[in-house]
């Protein structure tokens, strides 16, 4: 029985898992979970993901959440090339260091920017106050600066000459604001060059396929009925405003 991956490609960590599995030719069944339709709140999905989030994995009787745990599990099970999650202790620690830092840094800020620029205005029918936007943008820029100055420095990729899970997890978060029309690469040649390297390493077709939904989000939002977003309102307003 093939591994099942429960994914919604609007979600950043789902994109990482998707690209990782495809790039490594890991056989899997793509199980679409539409967050917008609240499918993650269904009974069935609750049995797969204890935390009711995507991405989720099911391998026989074994169910797992959290993209990092999932990718490390797949790397081990399918014996993917060493560079993704190096066996060398210090290299591995560097990957873990980035993966740990990013949870409450770029991941939060990239998500926030997407919601503030696109989703929340759709939900409440008006723009978010300027000072909130400015604050969020400043935080996002601080994280991007750290990524360039501490995590990348002069290296082609975060940990060295080759790509790793760190870059895979980083790129999807950095791409998220683009879905809301904010080009974070503008004025950042170092980051752009890294993005190009990552896209080439993964394969342009796969990278673009993974990002098709999010990059089409602005168009997609025009068609969406705001009442669909009612489901998210309390949580999002609490988190971001």
């Amino acid at each position, binding site marked *: 029985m093939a591994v099942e991956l429960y994914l919604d490609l609007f979600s950043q960590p789902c994109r990482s898992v998707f690209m990782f599995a495809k790039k490594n030719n890991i056989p899997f069944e793509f199980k679409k979970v539409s967050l917008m339709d609240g499918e993650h709140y269904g009974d069935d999905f609750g049995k797969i993901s*204890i*935390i009711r989030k995507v991405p989720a994995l099911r391998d026989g009787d074994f169910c*797992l959440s*959290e993209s990092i745990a*999932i990718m490390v*599990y797949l790397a081990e099970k399918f014996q993917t090339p060493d560079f993704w999650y190096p066996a060398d202790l210090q290299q*591995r*620690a560097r990957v873990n260091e980035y993966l740990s830092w990013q*949870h409450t840094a770029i991941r939060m800020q990239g998500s926030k920017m997407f919601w503030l620029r696109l989703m929340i205005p759709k939900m409440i029918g008006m723009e978010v106050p300027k000072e909130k936007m400015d604050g969020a943008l400043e935080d996002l820029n601080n994280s991007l600066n750290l990524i360039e100055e501490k995590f990348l420095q002069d290296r082609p990729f975060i940990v060295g000459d080759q790509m790793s899970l760190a870059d895979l997890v980083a790129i999807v978060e950095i791409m998220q604001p683009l879905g809301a029309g904010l080009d974070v690469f503008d004025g950042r040649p170092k980051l752009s060059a890294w993005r190009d390297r990552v896209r080439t390493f993964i394969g342009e077709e796969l990278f673009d396929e993974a990002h098709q939904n999010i990059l089409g989000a602005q168009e997609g939002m025009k068609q969406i009925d705001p009442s669909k977003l009612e489901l998210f309102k309390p949580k999002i307003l609490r988190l971001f405003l």
Partner: protein
Amino acid sequence: MATGRLVEVYLDLLSQPCRAIQILLSCTKIPHRVHRVALRKGEHRTAEFSKLNPMQKVPVLVDGGFVLTESDAILKYLANKYDIPEHWYPWQPERRARVDEYVAWHHTNTRPHAAKVFLLEVLLPAQFGAQVDQDRLERALLELDATLDKLESMFLRRQPFLCGDDITLADLLAVCELMQPLGGGRDVLKDRPQLQRWRSRVQSALGESFNEAHAVLFAVRDRRQAKL
């Protein structure tokens, strides 16, 4: 395998992730040297410390010339490098994945929600000499409550420990966070017998190293109680 060299760590035991590292080092008897960094005295902002860690945070690990930040990464590095009991961070992929799963979830759940209670009840009032913002505290307690529900129903369930039958890095990180509000005299597990039993099991498994690591926090609590 470990060489004769001592691994060095920069810690402030008032910091939850620092305690997790201290406890692991003590429990497993990994040879180490601790450099104390007093956050309340701004020692993380000195030129010397900033050279070591430009992000001005603790914990930091230094192993020879190798400098590492982020408690997850440090704990996993220690578990991978040294010959410590396997239960801390099991090799078997499914068991290891369970630990990775909790450790990831911890960042945006247990850690921020428990830390916020301590911040609002102890740190901010101490720093600014102001009263506790009761509204914000109420909201923070509600948020923590929801997280503790998830901790019980999603992770602990009927198991002795968060990831199964044995204590792991996950329990270490979680217990240090959930102890923090005690610095303000608040036991966030007061009405939760299931989590209290878990905490007792963790304390038993960790022995003296648990109390030693928490001595600073208890001292903060005792000083506050003396003032009231």
